[in-house]
């Protein structure tokens, strides 16, 4: 008989991630789709692709837990969990110790503190605006006419420190125009933008102790990990597939829920 499948669907503001695990929590398949305007369609497509990736059949699905910004839109889910719970769970699955998790998403940031046994102690979300999120980086890249996928490599070529001080994404964009007028290089501005993200994150909460970063921004731009480590004075780790951390957590919750 085929393994029963437990599915986690994490509908983020920019990408929808699906992870499938078996009853022991081993990852069997996964998929990522752009969330777009239709969360239901995106989550269905991602689910189908993840089932294919697992080489399984949709009939073997035993339980689906949805999470993320669009969690309540996933009609076919059996239950929902917040992204806070799922990120904590996903990261703990890999590291299994007390830590502070920083998740940098498309539209919000979270800092979650968990204890040695994986229990959540505290969490914070950024305030309403896009400061320090993926949306901020995208706006800066767009202003500089640089593809987002090139930002990491570009920033690594930076030789001079350029500081973007504004909180506000729109003001930061204006700041950048004036930096360009003053002759600043795009590579330095790119690095400045990453540094700004790090600053916005570390002012949310203390990152003392073991620090782990997850989310799409970290996954595509590992320079953020380095800049964050530089800033807090100690290493910042990341699980193998940081963008899928929330979906993995949701899948693990699906296992628990199905057992109950």
């Amino acid at each position: 008989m085929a393994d029963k499948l437990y599915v986690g669907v994490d509908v983020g503001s920019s990408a929808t991630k699906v992870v499938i695990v078996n009853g022991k929590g081993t990852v069997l398949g996964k998929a990522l789709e752009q969330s777009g305007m239709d969360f239901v369609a995106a989550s269905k497509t991602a689910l189908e692709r993840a089932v294919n990736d697992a080489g399984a059949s949709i009939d073997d699905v035993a339980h689906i837990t949805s999470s993320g910004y669009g969690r309540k839109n996933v009609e076919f889910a059996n239950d929902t969990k917040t992204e806070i719970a799922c990120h904590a769970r996903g990261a703990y699955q890999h590291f299994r110790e007390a830590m502070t998790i920083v998740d940098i998403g498309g539209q919000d940031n979270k800092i979650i503190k968990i204890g040695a046994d994986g229990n959540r102690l505290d969490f914070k979300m950024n305030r309403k605006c896009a400061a320090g999120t993926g949306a901020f980086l995208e706006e800066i890249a767009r202003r500089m006419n640089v593809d987002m996928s090139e930002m990491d490599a570009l920033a690594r070529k930076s030789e001079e420190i350029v500081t973007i001080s504004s909180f506000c994404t729109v003001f930061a964009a204006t700041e950048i125009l004036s930096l360009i007028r003053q002759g600043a290089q795009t590579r330095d501005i790119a690095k400045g933008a990453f540094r700004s993200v790090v600053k916005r994150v570390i002012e949310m909460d203390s990152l003392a102790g073991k620090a782990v970063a997850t989310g799409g921004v970290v996954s595509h731009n590992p320079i953020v990990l380095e800049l964050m480590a530089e800033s807090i004075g100690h290493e910042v780790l990341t699980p193998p597939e940081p963008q899928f951390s929330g979906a993995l957590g949701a899948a693990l919750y699906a296992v628990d829920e199905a057992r109950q």
Partner: protein
Amino acid sequence: MADEKKKPIFRKINATGPCKKIMADHFYELDEAAKSGSRKIAWCTSVGPAELLRAMGFLVYFPENHGAILGATRVALDTIPIANAAGYSPEICSYLTSDVGAYMKGETPLSLAYEGITEVPKPDVLVYNTNQCRDVKDWFMWYSRELDVPCIGIESFCNIEISREPHIAAVSRQLQDLVPALEKISGEKFDLDRFKEVVGLSRRCSDLWEETLQMGAAVPSPLTFFDSTILMGPAVVARGTQEANDFYELLIPELKQRVKDGVAAVDGEKHRIYWDGMPIWGKLRDLSTTFLSLQTCVVASTYCNSWVFSDLDPANPFDSMAKAYTDLFIVRSDSAKEEYILEMAKIFKIDGFLFHDAKTCPSNSNNRYGMPERLAAKFGVPSVTIAGDLNDLRLYSEEQSITQIEAFVEQLGEK
């Protein structure tokens, strides 16, 4: 496959009907007086010297109550920008901006609720107490200029540990100083016995309101913070009258019966939360539904407790009023507030705190000087802080706040 969540049941409190009646009587009485000139009208800040005004024959109108109605009906969304455009910043009290904006627009939500009322009752005098914030005075001064009406009041202390004799003396003197000006406006002589009587009625109201709130200590709680924001109406607008007291005498037995019968305001109450900070008026219903579906009861709040004035003493009306209005939570230092909140946590058997960081009301946003962190570090009580506002929903991100509340309840469940 979606899980079939049971629809949460709102358990209506029967005394809500009489509560609405008191509010209606309050506004109709003011409207009649404004139209006919039969009584003088004083506008008063919520924790201003209402007892003195009542004793001197004024009908008392509370603009902050109107502010809350503007918020709850979401009319504020249209009126705040008008005041912003007139130079009153979106960063200052959104009661002020929604109320002043509504006045400039010639609109009041009272006209929607109460047939025949078309405008707020024009004041003969504006009386403030800056014990809560500076905004109330700036607010009243706007009307004073606009309507050419005298604006008088009390400049209070702030950030004190607990009132000492010099604080009381200073406030008491200011209260007494108001008397000649008020006599001139009302045309009535100050009558000490009448004043004592009103202070006595107000004290009784305070005691009854406190008793009402204490019901929330029962497990399960028979009422929620969201119920209390409605039920507090008479204590806010009619303290110092027999009608307010009669209302609470009616309400308390109903709640006692609920406690006796084990009737919960939130079915299957699993967690108990303390709400610190202002209500988010335009989202009360949504938030109440969210908590209901999470089987979590917001059992107590700093906000509703702020209308308990246990120091009022009819035998010593001026000094006791000065003390009652100076030892309010909002006037106190962070360490005094912390102690108070912890005491509440014990009485109400709280699992966690919710801090509402209201953008335009710093005085009621107690998360800003590290209190949640201190509470967690010293006493291990977790908290969540949501960013929002009392009236300006432009400053509230619903998606994010609901996620935070859900995540917090999940966290409490995992303990």
